[in-house]
């Protein structure tokens, strides 16, 4: 039953905030359904995070895990696809599906407010250069991802006296900025390891300061098995801590079969330990073995998929690792939590971005109930107390482009009247259950509410079931075996995302 205040099928006009991956796949899907879409993009080009990254940025996963399900990457695209290639791919995608004419570039959204009461539509206030305006929409879809464009810049005592340069990772445009200098990189996520590699190529010294190590996920386990086979199939999905709505088989695996699941992850940890030689006593004679077990750590603040060279250079001392905290700046460098000091010329803060939803009116923002770990949504998209405002792209998974594409299809089915929402109180209960489930075992992070990581298989199954397609996507004689041990990839969902599955099923 639909909520009482919102007739989703009456939606004709849609305002989409952001022309990154989530905004583009949403616009493409809704335009194909005949809806009048307008995209608001702050920059002068589309692509979001892909338009303008730091030096040497790129995709964290193999190419087959990062493509629109029914719009494959061109032949010959490399694994861990460089950012500029993805940018070109998105340009072509938007052009092909007629999205570009719908984008208002260099237009910043300053406020999103309800037109009248809840469910009566939304007004987007915008600014473009010196011009300002307001437009009304039946529905607004926020596609700005988990964080804003504002860098997270941790402050430390003595910062004003530091004689060197402090830059956020987003300011690192070229490795030439680091040439011949003594560089410290703060952080241990993907961007931090990328920055450390860039620095190692040209800098006089490269230090990487790591507060808490995480289990790195190699492209291939033991150099043989692609990590997607070890982590992203239904078999291993049953071995991680069970989903909020686990199947009976998964509950059995985590009950009677618990020793088997526990043993599996210890084997994976052992393989990674030896593959990266995590006990090597890097740099300051502290090992990089994480404190948390891998099946928990993977759901925390940072999922580590480093480029292959990172650990090799760290072992050789080209990148010197420090497992400690930054206590303060000194005039010539840093005072670290382990009592040592470093003389540096440049501090690179690979510390992510801040969340900023300041464009939502205070009343609307209050109804989202945001807390330290963010705000929780039904199916990671809807808050029943705020009808007509949808988030697409607020779900962190290993194959985000697939997740956003499925979310866009889910929304299209809802607007087309082919998907019925539960009652508002049932959705609110579902949100509370998701919150309790995540808080019971996910490590804290400011975006915990949006993180799903390798539980994406379960989430994708739910979205696909909701729209009336089958979650069993593998084909051929060996389909039952593939369901168990083959990784699910975007191409498996091509007909769901395009909407063609409805036409193909003989009912």
């Amino acid at each position, binding site marked *: 039953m639909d909520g009482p205040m919102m007739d989703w099928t009456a939606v004709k006009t849609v305002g989409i905030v952001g022309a990154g991956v989530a905004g583009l796949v949403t616009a493409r899907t809704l335009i194909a359904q005949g809806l009048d879409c307008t995209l608001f993009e702050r920059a002068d080009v589309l692509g979001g995070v892909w338009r303008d990254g730091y030096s040497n940025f790129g995709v964290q996963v193999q190419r087959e895990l990062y493509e629109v399900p029914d719009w494959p990457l061109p032949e010959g695209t490399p694994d861990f696809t460089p950012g500029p290639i993805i940018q070109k791919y998105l340009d072509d995608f938007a052009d092909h599906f007629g999205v570009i004419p719908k984008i208002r570039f260099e237009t910043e959204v300053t406020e999103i407010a309800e037109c009248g009461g809840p469910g009566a539509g939304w007004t987007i206030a915008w600014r473009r250069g010196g011009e300002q305006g307001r437009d009304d929409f039946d529905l607004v879809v926020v596609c700005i991802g988990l964080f804003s464009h504002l860098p997270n810049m941790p402050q430390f005592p003595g910062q004003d006296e530091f004689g060197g340069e402090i830059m956020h990772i987003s300011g690192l445009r070229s490795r030439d900025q680091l040439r011949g200098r003594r560089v410290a990189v703060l952080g241990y996520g993907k961007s931090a390891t990328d920055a450390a590699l860039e620095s190692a190529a040209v800098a006089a010294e490269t230090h990487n300061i790591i507060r808490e190590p995480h289990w790195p996920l190699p492209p291939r386990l033991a150099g043989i098995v692609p990590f997607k086979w070890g982590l992203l199939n239904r078999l291993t999905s049953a071995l991680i801590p069970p989903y909020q709505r686990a199947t*009976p088989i998964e509950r059995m695996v985590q009950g009677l079969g618990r*020793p*088997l699941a526990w*043993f599996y992850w210890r084997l994976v940890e052992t393989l990674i330990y030896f593959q990266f030689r995590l006990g090597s006593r890097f740099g300051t004679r502290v090992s990089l073995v994480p404190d948390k077990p891998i099946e928990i750590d993977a759901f925390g603040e940072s999922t580590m998929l480093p480029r292959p060279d990172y650990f090799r250079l760290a072992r050789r001392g080209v990148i010197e690792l420090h497992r400690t905290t930054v206590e303060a700046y000194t005039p010539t460098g840093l005072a670290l939590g382990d009592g040592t000091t470093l003389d540096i010329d440049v501090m690179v803060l690979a510390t992510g971005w801040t969340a900023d939803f300041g464009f939502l009116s205070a009343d609307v923002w209050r109804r989202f109930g945001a807390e330290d770990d963010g705000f929780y949504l039904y199916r990671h998209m809807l808050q029943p107390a705020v009808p007509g405002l949808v988030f697409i792209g607020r779900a962190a998974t290993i194959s985000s482009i697939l997740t956003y594409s499925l979310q866009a299809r889910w929304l299209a089915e809802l607007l087309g009247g082919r998907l019925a929402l539960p009652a508002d109180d049932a959705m609110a209960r579902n949100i509370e259950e998701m919150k309790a489930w995540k808080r019971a075992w996910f490590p804290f992070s400011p975006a915990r509410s949006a993180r799903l990581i390798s539980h994406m298989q379960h989430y994708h199954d739910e979205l696909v*079931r909701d729209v009336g397609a*089958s979650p069993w*996507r593998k084909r051929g004689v060996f389909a039952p075996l593939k369901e168990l041990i083959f990784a699910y990839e975007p191409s498996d969902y091509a007909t769901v995302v395009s909407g063609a599955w409805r036409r193909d099923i*003989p009912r």
Partner: protein
Amino acid sequence: MTAVVWGGTVVGVVFGLLHAFYVYRLVIAEGPADTAPSHARAGYYALWTLGLWLLFGTYLLVLWLIGAAFWLVFKAGR
């Protein structure tokens, strides 16, 4: 050794039949991708499920026993 193989096979049969029944019902309800659900397809998936349990039942039993031993040692050491 023979006892372990027989034990594993029995485990495979018991859990395989339960799992196969569950898979059969799921496939009937949902159908594989872009095809209509049918008893034949559901039976095919169920047979695969039972076959895999029979094939790997012994390995699973052995790994479960090893895992349980390590797990108990790990828990005792904490």
